[in-house]
């Protein structure tokens, strides 16, 4: 008999070695997440995927599923915590969505929408962060980086390169590019690399493509990220989604 655990009372089958989020996704249960991507090793940094496993808070993207676990996912308490985490992500960087190319296609924003986050609650840091526009095809706007390391992992694990790393700690943490000059143009990043497309926010952008899909017609303008996320894993027919996703122009950014 298949091994099972429960999420919010629903029975979820799993295989040994699967994390809670992997088993949940396979069973059509959305757990909010930002740094998790099924193709890469888990990082467990954003804590959006926090769930209660037998009463203890764990990261669903790193915690192994186990026989008989009772997992709480979609509770008011957890969603309140997730909203606070998301608000902190917003005030730690500079997220001025009306001026961001990624608006409407951004997973950080979409998670905030999902959680019905109407304000940023905390005091804003307004940290001074740089822009690296040196690369001919790819732009980095450090104002929007949430240090999820998806670009780091995509470069190493999918592109077979090592373009990005996270340097420093705490408030001094920053994304760095692997070149003597520190500039993206001096790395071997190409616009076709997975690492150039994986960013869940508007921190890494492909130049000259930003407004091909108008604001208002973008993925999360009409679809909640829970549906988009599960659809991307084949659990909801893709036709129910905004055309921008169905045509696959942003193939990897939500590719779970």
């Amino acid at each position: 008999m298949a091994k099972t655990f429960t999420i919010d009372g629903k029975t979820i089958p799993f295989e040994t070695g699967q994390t809670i989020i992997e088993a949940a996704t396979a069973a059509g249960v959305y757990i909010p997440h930002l740094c998790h991507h099924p193709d890469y090793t888990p990082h467990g940094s954003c804590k959006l995927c926090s769930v209660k496993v037998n009463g203890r808070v764990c990261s669903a993207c790193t915690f192994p599923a186990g026989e008989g676990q009772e997992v709480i996912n979609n509770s008011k308490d957890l969603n309140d915590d997730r909203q606070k985490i998301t608000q902190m992500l917003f005030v730690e960087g500079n997220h001025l969505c009306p001026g961001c190319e990624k608006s409407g296609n951004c997973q950080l924003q979409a998670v905030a929408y999902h959680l019905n986050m109407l304000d940023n609650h905390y005091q804003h840091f307004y940290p001074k962060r740089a822009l690296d526009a040196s690369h001919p095809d790819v732009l980095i706007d450090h104002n929007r980086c949430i240090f999820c390391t998806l670009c780091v992992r995509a470069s190493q694990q999918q592109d077979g390169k090592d373009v990005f790393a996270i340097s420093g700690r705490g408030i001094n943490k920053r994304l760095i590019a692997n070149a003597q000059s520190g500039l993206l143009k001096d790395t071997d990043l190409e616009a076709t690399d997975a690492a150039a497309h994986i960013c869940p926010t508007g921190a890494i952008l492909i130049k000259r493509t930003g407004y091909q899909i108008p604001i208002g017609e973008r993925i999360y303008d009409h679809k909640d990220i829970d549906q988009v996320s599960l659809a991307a894993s084949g659990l909801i027919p893709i036709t129910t989604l905004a055309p921008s996703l169905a045509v696959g122009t942003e193939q990897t950014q939500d590719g779970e």
Partner: protein
Amino acid sequence: MANKIRIATTSLAGCFGCHMSFLDLDERLLQLAEVVEFDRSPITDIEHCTNCDIGLIEGGVCNSENVHVLREFRKNCKILVAVGACAINGGLPALRNFIPLEECLAESYLDGIGVENPQIPSDPELPLLLDKVRPIHEVVKIDYFLPGCPPSADVFWKFLTDFLEGREPSLPYEWVHYD
């Protein structure tokens, strides 16, 4: 009609876009006028607010006058609503937060292209600029937030009708937008 709901509105460090969006209520404004009365607002030209039920604040705070106005609203409004991206997180005016104030002033009034008679305005009548543009919840307590740049007329309508009919205001997914 007695006991109309009193609403005050203002634009601080905003572009009046949220007010324009409010006016997009169009003919619904007539319906609203039956149950609502405007106090201090660019719509009425009343200069100071007195005992209001709702204060709608567009824009963040960028100077000392914004702070005074915001405090006046807080003092006189039972509930205060942050309207739009700038009130909520500083918005595009907050882009100046990454440039020292002195440089901003020099670029605008001394060194900028086409500046004649270069001098930094210093008339005592002029409100002093804050070193950073701030969202309003960092200055006073805010009760509700209507995100959007600007929030659509439907958002205003939903909020006000919920309020007038005694429901807890809430917005459906598609109307929660930061852009």
